[in-house]
């Protein structure tokens, strides 16, 4: 077919942006079935219904939705499966659920309710074999290992892993833990800078870049988003594959569409229009 432009020897789509798009992920922190967002893991504000917000964010252009259950009580936690089911019903972008997943069985319930991926944090540190168990059954693409890390004024090598909602130090180093998670079958890393979380001062690009260069799987940067320039920085200097933010979207500081257009103008590949 000499007239066919569709030929295997073509190496470029010629579409202007022949690159994998960087992802903008909206995060819903959920407590007892309601979306809240902490500032430095404290001072919770109520921001609405998770199912409504998930769909609204997806329609506005979020590339992915993460629902993190931060419910402290067992009583409140029972609502999670139902919340996930309602949120997943009209959601046709990737949907991750995290918070309180301790066993393969917990993960299976969340997948059954409609999640595409689970995010595991404290349970993975306590029982690293859990990563491989979930990956073995549901595939590596379904397992995100979340790392909450703090380094204060120290170097990226000193960044330490914290668990239990940022309350307990583990003695593990973030870079080493990310590499181990990959070897055990994780598909992505969700890296939260506790130093920046909720501050609006920008992502920890140095730490994100260090983690991104020590693993081959995608790294999602989290913690500190305050304006569009912070996203530009974490995608360029931070080499993040995706960036996650919560309050910046719930409270409409920036619409996601507006943010994506600003990033496109800055030369960052984005899925747009959505």
């Amino acid at each position, binding site marked *: 077919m000499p007239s066919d432009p*569709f030929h295997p020897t073509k190496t470029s789509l010629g579409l202007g942006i022949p690159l994998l798009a*960087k992802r903008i992920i909206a995060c819903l922190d959920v407590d007892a079935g309601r979306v809240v967002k902490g500032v430095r893991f404290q001072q919770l504000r109520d921001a609405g219904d998770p199912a409504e917000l998930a769909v609204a964010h997806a329609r506005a252009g979020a590339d992915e939705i993460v629902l993190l259950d931060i419910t402290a009580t067992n009583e409140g936690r029972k609502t999670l499966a139902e919340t996930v089911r309602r949120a997943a019903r009209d959601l046709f972008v990737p949907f991750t659920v995290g918070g309180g997943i301790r066993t393969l069985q917990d993960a299976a319930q969340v997948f059954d309710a*409609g999640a*595409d991926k689970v995010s595991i944090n404290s349970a993975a540190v306590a029982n690293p074999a859990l990563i491989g168990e979930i990956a073995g059954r*549901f*595939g590596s693409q379904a397992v995100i290992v979340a790392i909450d890390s703090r380094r204060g004024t120290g170097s990226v090598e000193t960044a330490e892993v914290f668990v239990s909602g940022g309350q307990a130090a583990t003695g593990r180093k973030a870079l080493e833990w990310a590499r181990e998670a990959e070897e055990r079958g994780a598909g992505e890393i969700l890296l939260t800078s506790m130093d920046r979380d909720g501050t609006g001062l920008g992502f920890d690009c140095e730490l994100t870049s260090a983690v991104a260069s020590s693993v081959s799987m995608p790294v999602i940067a989290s913690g500190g988003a305050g304006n569009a320039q912070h996203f530009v920085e974490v995608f360029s200097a931070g080499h993040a594959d995706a960036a996650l933010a919560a309050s910046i979207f719930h409270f409409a500081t920036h619409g996601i569409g507006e943010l994506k257009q600003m990033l496109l103008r800055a030369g960052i590949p984005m899925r747009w229009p959505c």
Partner: protein
Amino acid sequence: MIAIVDYGAGNISSVKKALEHLGANAQVTSDPAVIAAAQKVVMPGVGHFSRCQLLNDHLRAPVLDAITSRKPFLGICVGMQWLFAGSTEAPETPGAALFSGECSRFPASVKSPHVGWNQIEVRPGSRLLKGVNSGAFVYYTHSYRAPVIAETTACTNYGGPFSAAVERDNVFGVQFHPEKSAEAGLKILENFCAF
């Protein structure tokens, strides 16, 4: 009724949800009788190609029967890769060899797995991709990919071009996840439901 073939390769509830959202009657099954009774067959799949051995061991004949009897068939992700001869990911596990060529890993020049939204270039005339334009973004998550062949109807460039979609007669395959690809993905599933 659309049979969604469940051979133990991961989570397929989102495929069912998307088909039901479009008004289809979809049933997740590993029962050959249900596959035989279905009007259409969808075969999802995530993870390692060796999982296809479970399919080969238990459901290969009913699935191939459905294809031979000209029921519209859609393979998704590893479900599409199975339509090829095989994959270097699991050389001992054969595919259906309905399309020529073998799936192989991305070159070391790009990050792997390929996760996220990437663009497709669509061959004009594709029935499955009718109404979806070149440049549309779809969601991928995979480490192995199928070569571009004569039946390729869409390709994506990531470490070189690979088959994003293939079709011949009643057999269709997509490497990306239409159930997770927002409006573009729903349009593709809607086209399939209408066959």
